[in-house]
């Protein structure tokens, strides 16, 4: 076994993102990375470290702080035949590019009657947990999941971080990938037999009979920890990783709820108008008679995410809160 393949076995989420980009750049000369500090600095979260040296300045392009401008250039480049991978440093900054994402990337195909595909990938960091305060910590993927014309991905495992990008680049639609900042340091063993993942389905990450924990992103490890604790109470929780936030794979969610008859949705976004609200509404519409208890939601508290550690922790979904909600749900009434 050579050192390269030995290191393949265990990999960090950050390294998986980096290897995914390397693969993409090797596989397709039309692909390139464009973003703030992706080149000489190596990426704000060090995802693109070393890639400028490996691929050169035509493929790894540093841009000025002009999110709407460079994202729009990505849209045009995609429409005209390139395969841009745009990096937006953090999803709070993506609001400066929202015009181009929504009014052009998401709209051009339908508005033109199907004349243009927009095979654009936008990666951005999302989420809280590093004490980065209110302008670098928000989870806005739920907003983007509102917009027809986009696909929205939330890799929560190293495997998805490693292989979702290739699927996103092969997709004819604009695909947004939300990488959770807390997950970058996560390490997992990669299954050497897996070389690709789909971007169409949710996945059961832990099978269980008593209730469904429905989640994505950095709330996935929290749900898995909660499930372990619930198991010691004799409660068998199923954990569903949504993976794809738009279009939602409700089939997998419904099948799980049809087995467990109880659902807790865990979403780091704010509760009001959130992705968790969407899933709860769809369960109410299509699976009400499967439910033996009300749907519960664990979301972030409705404040701009604060800096101080104890305040930030209190703002975000916690394992304790998930466990408490689950216990409450199965309590005899």
């Amino acid at each position, binding site marked *: 076994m050579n050192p390269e393949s030995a290191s393949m076995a265990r990999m960090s989420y950050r390294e998986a993102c980096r290897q995914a980009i390397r693969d993409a750049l090797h596989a397709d000369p039309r692909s390139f990375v464009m973003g703030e500090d992706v080149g000489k600095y190596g990426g704000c979260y060090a995802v693109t470290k070393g890639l400028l040296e490996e691929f050169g300045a035509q493929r790894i392009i540093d841009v000025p702080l002009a999110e709407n*401008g460079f994202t729009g250039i990505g849209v045009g*480049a995609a*429409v*005209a035949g390139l395969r841009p991978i745009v990096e937006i440093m953090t999803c709070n900054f993506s609001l400066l590019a929202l015009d181009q994402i929504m009014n052009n990337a998401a709209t051009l195909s339908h*508005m*033109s009657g199907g004349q243009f595909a927009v095979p654009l990938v936008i990666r951005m960091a999302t989420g809280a947990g590093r004490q980065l305060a209110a302008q670098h910590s928000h989870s806005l993927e739920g907003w983007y999941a509102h917009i027809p014309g986009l696909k929205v991905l939330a890799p929560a495992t190293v495997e998805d971080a490693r292989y979702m990008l290739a699927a996103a680049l092969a997709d004819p639609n604009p695909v947004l990938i939300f990488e959770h900042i807390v997950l970058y340091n996560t390490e997992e063993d990669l299954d050497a037999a897996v070389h690709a993942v789909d971007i169409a389905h949710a996945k059961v990450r832990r099978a269980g009979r008593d209730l469904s924990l429905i989640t994505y992103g950095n709330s996935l490890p929290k749900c898995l920890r909660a499930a372990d604790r619930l198991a010691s109470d004799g409660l068998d929780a199923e954990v569903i990783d949504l993976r794809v936030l738009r279009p939602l794979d409700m089939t997998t969610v419904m099948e799980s709820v049809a087995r467990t008859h109880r659902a807790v949705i865990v979403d780091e976004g704010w509760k009001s108008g959130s992705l968790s609200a969407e899933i709860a509404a769809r369960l109410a519409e299509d699976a009400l008679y499967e439910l033996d208890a009300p749907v519960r939601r664990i979301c972030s508290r409705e404040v701009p995410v604060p800096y101080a550690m104890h305040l930030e922790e209190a703002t975000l979904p916690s394992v304790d809160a998930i466990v408490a909600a689950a216990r409450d749900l199965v309590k005899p009434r």
Partner: protein
Amino acid sequence: MTGKIHLDRSHLHEIYRQMQRIRRLEAKCVELYQMQKIRGFLHLYDGEESIAVGVMAALEPHDAVVATYREHGHALAHGVPMDTILAEMLGKVQGCCRGRGGSMHLFDGKRRFFGGNAIVGGGLPLAAGIAMADQRLRPGRVTACFFGEGAVGEGVFHETLNLAELWRLPVLFVCENNLYAMGVPLQDSEVETDIWRKARAYRMPAEQVDGMDPIQMQVAAERAVAHIRSGAGPYFLEARTYRFRAHSMFDTQAYRTRDEIDTWKSRDPIERLRTWMLANHQITLDEAEAIDAGVVDEIAAALAFAEAGTLEPLEDLERFALMDNVAQEVA
């Protein structure tokens, strides 16, 4: 370049014909709007025809064009068929966007006409991106990007100009300065009212042109296109112009005077070209009338096509929201 172009009769006639196609099609659009056959927003190009016609005369068919919501003229001058434009405005599936876009969103992928952008300034980075792809995949091509002077208030105008010059992208920026952003006069919204100077601040070659004269527009555009095709980067033209009609069909024009409108109308580019050609024996009255009659016939045929068009079936409403399983042809 010294600004020499082929000013032969047939070219002059073609310039005249293109401007008449735009002017008269839009006059028909006003009628159709009053009959409520065209709905929504309708922005007319009356008075500004020289710009699209002059610039397109300097482009090749494989060059790309990005325009605004006031884009009927650009679409026509770049070769988008009049019948599909009119069918689009009537909301028919035979329209150039199957009736999904309407007046403000005309697209024609085959002819590299990329809209039809109704977010002011929104087309600029799109054009720069198309140019970036051309620079890598189809060197030698130019993307012409049209926008009004209102766009210079947007941050993305400055972001795009900076990046286009930084990366030497093959973009021809054409600012159609008609002096009012909807109803706000330029001097009430900008400190620097010579728009071309803003491009110079990004070290981009830039000049101001008489946007009421198609020949001067073409001469300037050819100079610009030669610069761009040489690989030297983008070029900026500020075309001084005036729209004769209201901003849209809902505009009472309280912000400008009748006298001002009349003064500009006395410089009507179509009337001026016609009068000049007649006086200089570049066209006979019979020839001019034959061109006009041809345009009238083309409009009648386009209208018949549009009226005979059908509505997109409702079951196709969500088609193309995603492009999964749609065969791709890169524009």
